[in-house]
């Protein structure tokens, strides 16, 4: 199974604190990527969201970090994911 990891930022996060919190998770994901390299001998690609193309979705499962303000692909998918963001809160359904 091939993964493509988007760890960089397209714009300012939609909510205060999101960038700090997702950066912390992203760092841990970086640890996980090292772990993946050692255990599975795989080297997942990490790119910025603005470098991702529609064609990449055909080839890869993608890992996105951020929120609709900071990651353009989360913004584009947001209406089709089982979660809603409202100002001041996340709404999960």
């Amino acid at each position, binding site marked *: 199974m091939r993964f493509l990891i988007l760890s960089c930022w397209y714009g300012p996060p939609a909510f205060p604190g999101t960038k700090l919190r*997702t950066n912390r*998770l992203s760092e841990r994901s970086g640890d996980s990527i090292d*772990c993946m390299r050692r255990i599975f001998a795989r080297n997942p690609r990490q790119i910025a969201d603005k470098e991702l193309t529609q064609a990449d979705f055909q080839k890869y*499962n993608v890992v996105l970090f951020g929120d609709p303000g900071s990651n353009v692909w989360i913004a584009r998918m947001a209406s089709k*994911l089982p979660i809603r963001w409202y100002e001041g809160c996340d709404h999960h359904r």
Partner: protein
Amino acid sequence: MRSPSVNRVFPQPRHLPALVYPNPMQPTRYVVMNSGFTFTESEYNGDYSMPRLGDYAVLKSRRMTCRNPQLQGYSMNRGSFLRSPNDDDSDLRAARIRGSCAGERLEIYWVDTEGGGATLILAPSGRSLLIDTGNPGPDDRDAKRIAAVASRQG
């Protein structure tokens, strides 16, 4: 994969959503959001280890509340489709599915054991079936986990 039945609002900025879901842009592929490996290298034993978060989770920022190093600094506010009995990380080792038909209930318990998982099925007739029992160890960890789940159900 179906949509979670949860309908809750979580205030920012302390909560962060994480999920895995069919990619709306390409449904034959998955999209993962704000998550990665949730098991540690020391837990890897040759099989793919059990993910700690399931299909979706809401991570709540707290200081060093979670014993899992990959999730340290966060506690899980919600679980997954296989929702754990409690939100405590230690209880994620057992997940439960319940179904019912015409008043009769089928219960399936999945217990996290080394090398995969043990599955305990309780049929409406009262009979039970245990599939896989993990591995023997010096402290009988897997056996104790299965016994704890089985004894809770009587």
